[in-house]
């Protein structure tokens, strides 16, 4: 596909207070970076979540997006699943394609 390289994209939505643990896992898994969106809103298993709160970054939801090679992804997916066993949150995994794979190795 246009010389693109297949990668795995993880999107993880968790309470902001649990985000540091996820970020640590993402870094430990060898991901070269991540995108963090704080104050995401939506409706889910636990009901409604309003978006960003003006004076509270602690009780909002954070979405972490990271892209990494499929061979590294499995371990991270298992690890995040383990963590989500004890806390609320969701993880979406998808195939994605990047043009400059060296950025993500």
């Amino acid at each position: 596909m246009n010389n693109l390289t297949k990668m795995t994209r993880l999107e993880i939505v968790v309470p902001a207070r649990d985000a540091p643990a996820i970020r640590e896992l993402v870094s430990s898994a060898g991901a070269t970076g991540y995108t963090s969106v704080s104050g995401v809103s939506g409706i889910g298993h636990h009901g409604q979540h309003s978006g960003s709160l003006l004076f509270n970054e602690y009780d909002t939801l954070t979405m972490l997006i990271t892209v990494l090679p499929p061979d590294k992804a499995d371990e991270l997916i298992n690890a995040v699943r383990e963590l989500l066993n004890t806390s609320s949150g969701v993880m979406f995994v998808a195939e994605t394609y990047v043009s400059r794979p060296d950025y993500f190795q």
Partner: protein
Amino acid sequence: MSLILRAQVAAAAHDIVPAWPLDSFIAVNPLAGRESYPFETETTAEAATTRSGSAYLADYQRGRITRDDIDAALLERIPQLADRRLRIGTAAVSAVRVAELDMRLVAAAPAPEPVAVAELTWLDEYLAVWVAGYLCPDPAWPMPHHADGFYRAWRTLACLDPSLPRTVRRTLTTLSPEPDAALAHALQRLGITAADVPRALRTALGHLPGWVGHIKWRAEKVGDIDLTSYLAVRFTVQVALGITPAADQTTQTAQRDQTTLTSAPFWLRAERVAQALTAARPSREDVAAVARVLSTHPITDQRYTWQKAYELNYRTALIGALRSTVETRDGRNVQLVMCIDPRSEGLRRHLEESSSVETFGFAGFFGVPIRFAHYQARGAIDSLPALLSARHHITEIPVDHEQAHRVVAAGKFRDALRHAVHTADSTAATPFAFAETAGWFYGGISILRTLTPRIHARIVRALSLSPRDLRSDVTIADAFTLDERATLAETALRMMGLSQFAPLVVLAGHGSESENNLYQSALDCGACGGNPGHANARAAAAIFNDPEVRLLLADRGLPIPFDTFFVAAEHNTVSDMVTVLDRHLIPDSHTSSADRFEQLQRTVADKLVTERARHLPGASPRHSPARLRGRAHDWAEVYPELGLAGNATMIIGPRDITRNVDLGRRVFLHSYRTELDPTGAALETIMTAPLVVAQWINHQYYFTALNPDTLGAGTKTIHNAIGTLGVISGHSGDLRRGLPWQSVGLGTELFHEPMRLTVVVEAPLARIGEIISRNQVLRDLFDNDWITLTARDHPAALWHRYTAYGFTATATATPAATATPMEGPHT
């Protein structure tokens, strides 16, 4: 494998509450990890969640809980008891009466044993020493290899530890240099199966809860240690020394508690109640009828009913005291905005006795989250709620450069003396002669500080030129764009419902003053991250006085008259004096009204200090205000002030509802007016930020009062500080959590009444319901009964109680005749 293990560690640590360091004391709910479960299912063995039955019964006997309160609490908890009647002997009795009688009879039984302080194991003490050595913030001899991280530094050094057997030292040299691998290896060596790993990790993290909580905080905020490396050391030592984990003591006690409670003779209970209801010997049918009622109210639930009754007594009186009339006011010369902190309530009440003053309550950081450093200072404070992280850095620009030069020179001179004395005292070879020479001066200072603390304070103040004396402006324009500033200002005005401006608006932050008090930060402003709030007040005043900001505010429908001026001030919560800051900024047109305000404030402060003296240990209203204020400078004083002890309620609504009501400095007062908040955004901000901070504080006091030795820090008198990081009790052991005993009690008696926060809101119920339903934090707190909510739409409407199923109207509130819960903390 190792990533999974990291995830397992993080999962095991999920419910652990991060513990902030002592110099920025943040009140937290020590059981915050359990907030997603109902309060009443929170039967952890390591924490008491209510008092004992006999304590409540004593309250009943002295009238602090009435039968009406018990009935109401029973009906709230067990709605099916309503309207149910039964016939005992010849008389008809309501089910509620039966249950209520049962509680009073059972509570007389001996109380279950209090939660014991867990004995530290050898492994705990070993780790406590290493962690303290590694994390020490001001080491005279920093731990070698500190830069390699906790596990690696320990691994290098432990091989040389003479207290370990030689064989153990030798085996330690074969360890993996990676903490993850070492942890995995140790778990494997202990024969812990993959399925048991989470439980093993959780058990290990249950030891040394103070240090573990601090490590969790530190891993997120500093990053030089994490729980994986901590556990790697812990399990490795356990394996190397062949320590088998002792039988899990905590689960044992939990089981014991459970058995003593459930095995209480159910039929005996029923018989006793039936007997009390009939003069004669009760028949089997009577006992059975009673038993059917009692089965809805198991004995394990009774202490929750008692606690609810205890809180209802207060809430009923509070709601009854609130006002339902709106008065139109004009002629206010001064508006004073203070922190929601309960300590502001007294000052506001007394100041409003003068018709020229109107007061507002708002979070003490005034909506301006900043990191603040004094002019050319070497350090900064994060002056903002713990719910936020610092993004905006503010400092000062001196107005008078000649003075700035003097202040800096004085600071440098002082630093030279400090540094010289510190070096002489801490270098290996110098302390001996230093003690011989300096000891005589130290002795003199000791005498002065003990016998005449006020004179000592006066001398110190005369000798030093503090950075606080510098006339300066805060660099607000560098930290926030114009648009940001206008938004901050608009948010603040809409949140506190301020739209009619007096000529002078005073924004008073607050700070405390005490000597020799490791917990001084717990007395400062919680909304400012355990710092005094003067910097935020100055920043906010600068924003409101900015003509460009005012232009934008006018565009947004919030015009501020050109003759209105905002001044910053600081409320000293020990002396109750409010000092106007940045006097050089006040235009000539406003100086006289600022002076008048200060004058008025001074007389009011004396009254308030005397009022507070009734509850302050060792003080008396007969003492002079100067003497009472002297406690701030007394290095022997462990009760400089009572802080937020007694806090019980947060009221969100216009001041009209509480004006002229004595709330006994027990109430967080946040001003709010629905009219100024068309979208409800301001209310959502109040309920998700100031309310959450108030709840953290409330629960910190609640659980400290109930568990002074485990979730509280125990008595101050044996505290031993580790730099500014925290305290241990005595010579070793766990880092202490929570507040010291001196914050909640005197002798063996509590002066803080442990009550879950009662939140009272005046705002459209539909709006409140919507806000709760879209914020998980509020759903958790209110639906699970960690705190309660009572609300009404407008002054003429009925009060409604929030339940997980919606609002229900409360019985018409009449002030309870017997109780006087508006009183301050009882002594």
